């Protein structure tokens, strides 16, 4: 068989178990595909020798009857997730030479399950951005059209899956960093409930929002990967001791009753492209035809969510990134002559423009005289945003909220570079769920007039990732993969 990189993880599992092909063959095809699509710049590092060695070992284990769930299947990780003894850069000059001293919790899970870690993927520096353009290692390009952005910040993880370099990958989502690129690249991206997946060993950006999640070319593969990484970890104080289960095993259980809410604040606004509206209308009709009750809802504080996010996230970023001082690890300026200069010059030379921008805003809103007016107020309004969702799910009995993932499809590289607010507006539909810690999924529902993928977002109540995955799975099965955007389906 050839082009094994184009198979989904589920098909790879079956083929490997039946000995239709070996893990070494799969990894070789993935490595070939990565080389052939090098111009999209999805990877910061590729572990060619290590991955082949690991694949060989997986084949030996398969021969002995080892049934580890991901045994022999390749996966890539966003380069903000630690893999012991390999570089983890967070796409920053600051961490260009940083070697991870330990594995992240999710990396441990992948290793334990037998996955072959093939490389680390590109991202917006320290997970700050919406386009995949803010990387010290160069912008990632959208595999569909190379003059377009893939979306960020999990740009490389998403582009690599869309380009069929790998079947699935891990990313992280703070304000939409999995869902937005998934929409732009025509793949499935899931942000789990805050606390579902441990962030131990993940480079922090905004700790009250950061969450690790999965990117794949189907809901099944997304569920398969989530089953591996979800679970309690005492090393992350925000990890919740909640039973996780094999999400992929229950994915065919479509609910008998389903009430879908359409937030009027998301639909009745200017700025959503017409093609996206049409694709969403068709998707809504699909779920109605499947028996769902569809109703208009209101999330009245939606208009404040973006501003709340761009106060809270920079504030947390300013605090988290204060650790980069050029002393214990990371970049140290050669121009500094005393300690204060080491701090200032190392940080000024080591951080990129977007990171500096957010640190400045963060320190401003946290400083004396502004804290109450900005940060404290933003935290209170965050509660109002969360209460909007709470009321929808608990009082109105809505099971799922359906919404656009983004107001536009992938825009041109450089188009929003000079205007941070225009760039931030891309996150307008993903941020409210992030502020509330709710799980959300983006899945492809068609293409626009420029042949670029369109994403649809579903948001559920806490801990209900199963429902999100089941509903998307039904959509994929009924519509058929050939009619959905995913490039290599």
């Amino acid at each position, binding site marked *: 068989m050839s082009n094994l990189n184009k198979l989904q993880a589920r098909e790879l599992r079956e083929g490997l178990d039946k000995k239709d092909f070996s893990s070494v063959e799969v990894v070789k095809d993935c490595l070939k595909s990565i080389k052939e699509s090098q111009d999209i710049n999805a990877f910061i590092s590729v572990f060619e020798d290590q991955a082949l060695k690991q694949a060989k070992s997986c084949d030996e284990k398969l021969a002995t009857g080892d049934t580890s769930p991901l045994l022999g299947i390749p996966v890539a990780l966003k380069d903000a997730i630690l893999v012991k003894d390999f570089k983890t850069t967070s796409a920053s000059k600051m961490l260009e030479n940083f070697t991870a001293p330990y594995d992240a919790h999710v990396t441990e899970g992948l290793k334990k399950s037998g996955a072959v870690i093939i490389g680390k993927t590109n991202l917006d520096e320290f997970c700050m951005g919406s386009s995949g353009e803010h990387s010290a290692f160069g912008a990632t390009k959208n595999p569909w059209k190379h003059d377009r952005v893939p979306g960020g910040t999990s740009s490389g993880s998403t582009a690599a899956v869309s380009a069929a370099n790998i079947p699935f990958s891990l990313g992280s989502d703070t304000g939409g960093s999995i869902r937005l690129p998934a929409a732009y690249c025509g793949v499935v991206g899931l942000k789990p409930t805050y606390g579902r997946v441990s962030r131990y060993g993940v480079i922090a950006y905004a700790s009250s929002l950061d969450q690790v999640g999965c990117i794949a070319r189907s809901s099944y593969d997304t569920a398969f990967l989530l089953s591996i990484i979800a679970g309690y970890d005492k090393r992350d104080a925000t990890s919740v001791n909640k039973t996780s289960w094999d999400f992929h095993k229950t994915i065919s259980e479509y609910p008998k009753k389903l009430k879908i809410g359409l937030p009027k604040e998301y639909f009745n606004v200017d700025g959503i492209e017409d093609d996206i509206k049409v694709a969403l209308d068709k998707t809504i009709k699909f779920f109605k035809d499947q028996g769902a009750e569809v109703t208009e809802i209101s999330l009245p504080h939606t208009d404040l969510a973006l501003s709340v996010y761009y106060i809270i996230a920079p504030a947390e970023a300013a605090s988290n990134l204060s650790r980069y001082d050029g*002393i214990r690890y990371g*970049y140290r300026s050669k121009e500094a*002559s*005393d300690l204060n200069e080491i701090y200032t010059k190392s940080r000024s030379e080591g951080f990129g423009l977007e990171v*500096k921008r957010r640190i400045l805003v963060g320190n401003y809103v946290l400083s004396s005289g502004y804290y109450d007016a900005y940060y404290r*107020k933003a935290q209170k309004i965050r509660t109002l945003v*969360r209460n909007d969702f709470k009321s929808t799910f608990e009082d109105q009995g809505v099971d799922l909220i359906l919404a656009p993932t983004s107001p536009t499809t992938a825009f041109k590289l450089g188009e929003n570079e000079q205007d*941070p607010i225009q760039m931030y507006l891309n996150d307008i539909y993903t941020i409210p769920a992030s502020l509330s810690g709710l799980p959300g999924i983006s899945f492809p529902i068609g293409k626009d007039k420029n042949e670029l993928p369109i994403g649809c977002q579903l948001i559920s109540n806490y801990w209900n990732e199963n429902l999100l995955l089941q509903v998307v799975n039904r959509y994929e099965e009924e519509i058929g993969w050939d009619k959905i955007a995913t490039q290599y389906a």
Partner: protein
Amino acid sequence: MSENNDFDFKTVLELSKLEPLNSDEEKQLKSSFNKILNHVEVIKNKVLSSDDSSLEMTHVHSENNALREDNEDSIEETNMNVDSALMNAPDSRDRCFITPLIIQAKKEIENE
């Protein structure tokens, strides 16, 4: 946004231990800093109800944080050893991080 914005920008740069690399970067940073603050001004101006104490948030959902036991054993599990901690240090010697002089600048000492 403060009326004395230039002062704010310089102060916040200092607080952040950052300095623009050149005048272009300074212009860009200053302009985007102002744009972002203008955008989030809506929060500052938002009037909340008189009793907003119930809006204080400690966690996004009702689950409690899962804190580890506060004892020596649990700390040991997550701590790195000295070699691991030093492996990414820009400069180290004798199992210590090397930093420049803190109290006095080098030149001052040489002049003494």
